[in-house]
């Protein structure tokens, strides 16, 4: 997807319409990441809400000249979700999604009726190697750096890069050519 730079600039100038369009484009993908981290749909929506308020209030800190807008938002979302999981209120509340990573979330989702997207995707995800699932989970959902991932997987830094390439290539074949 091409990044809608004109909308982002309009939002940075205070255009609420542009902000709403961007929300429509990105909110679902970010909610998926947040939900994987907080494992509770209600809490995930609360976090998503805070994240978009932050995006609006801090939009001047992003520049279309450098970095992906989605990556910038992704960092805000993951940090907010991780902060949430460290809060006292969160620790005291029971989580309604018993999941370790996005695959479990996908499974839970595909069991609900009418989630054809998830059902279709799950078939492909099932074909992903476990090592790829773990790698994508760490890099994308949990926000690990390359160095942290290498340490977690006990692999050299270069291997993390190569695997990231291969695993996400697999994913692309599944989701983009569906």
């Amino acid at each position, binding site marked *: *997807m091409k990044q809608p730079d004109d909308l982002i600039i309009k939002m940075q100038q205070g255009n609420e319409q542009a902000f709403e369009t961007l929300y429509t484009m990105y909110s679902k*993908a970010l909610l998926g990441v947040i*939900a994987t981290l907080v494992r509770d749909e209600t809490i995930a929506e609360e976090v998503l809400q805070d994240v978009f308020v932050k995006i609006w209030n801090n939009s001047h800190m992003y520049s279309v000249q450098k970095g992906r807008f989605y990556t910038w938002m992704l960092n805000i979302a993951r940090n907010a979700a991780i902060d949430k999981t460290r809060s006292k209120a969160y620790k005291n509340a029971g989580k309604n999604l018993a999941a370790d990573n996005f695959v479990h979330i996908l499974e839970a989702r595909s069991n609900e009726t009418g989630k054809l997207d998830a059902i279709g995707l799950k078939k492909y995800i099932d074909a992903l190697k476990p090592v790829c699932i773990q790698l*994508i989970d760490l890099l994308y959902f949990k926000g*690990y750096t390359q160095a942290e*991932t290498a340490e977690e997987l006990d692999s050299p830094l270069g291997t993390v890069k190569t695997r990231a390439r291969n695993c996400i290539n697999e994913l692309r074949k599944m989701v983009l050519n569906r």
Partner: protein
Amino acid sequence: MNEQDIIASGLLELYVTGSLSEEDRLKVETAIQEYPAIKEEVEKIESALMQLSESASAPVSDSVWREITAQTSGVRTLDHKPKRRNWNAITGWAAAILCFAGIFWMIKQNNDLKDRIRVTNTNNVVLKEKLENTETKLAENSEYLEVILSDDFTPVVLPGNEAVAPDALATVYFSEEETVAYVDVNGLPEPPEGKVYQVWSLTMNPLTPTSIGVLDSYDDNEYKLFKIEIIPGQEAFGITLEPAGGSEAPTLEQLYTLGTITP
């Protein structure tokens, strides 16, 4: 690295997930500016990851956007409903000022009340002292009255000595059973400065006077009624005027009153 090397390296994937070091990130950003194919590749990686997490997401409730707009609408655009915002601010400040004024007023009220409590407490102490004095006095008076009215105490009238004080008169209330007696000296003139009345009890045969009391608190005694200790077996009482502090033996030239106890 050329275009294809960068694409194949895995750097772009890590760039999208935000996992690169600052150095590598800048490297990728430069490459994106330079090669449109790299930018296109980044977009594809991003799309794939977004689709993945969208699949892991429940549908986003409408309430989320409503809450976001409630918090962001008009917050940054200065020309948006300025009146209403100002009004809120004014109301807020007014409430704060009122609140502070209220607090100060209450503190003042409280201090005033504390002052009044202090004054009242002082008054209470004074009144309590007065009450105690009155009660003591009342008890004394009751005691005197009881003595005077009682059958146990016999009044012995001591008429004035014709030679010294013909108009003087004193009364001793005494009882055979008690070791105390009460001397009423209302009928005696005020003693001159430096002099005191001294009360004596006497036995007649032989005539032996014994001092039973020096009335040195004459001025302080409101009723001129003195409580004195007596010795049993006495037959008469007399009162003489003596130098301050009293004397060993009565000065008979200054014998004011004398009376015998009639059995």
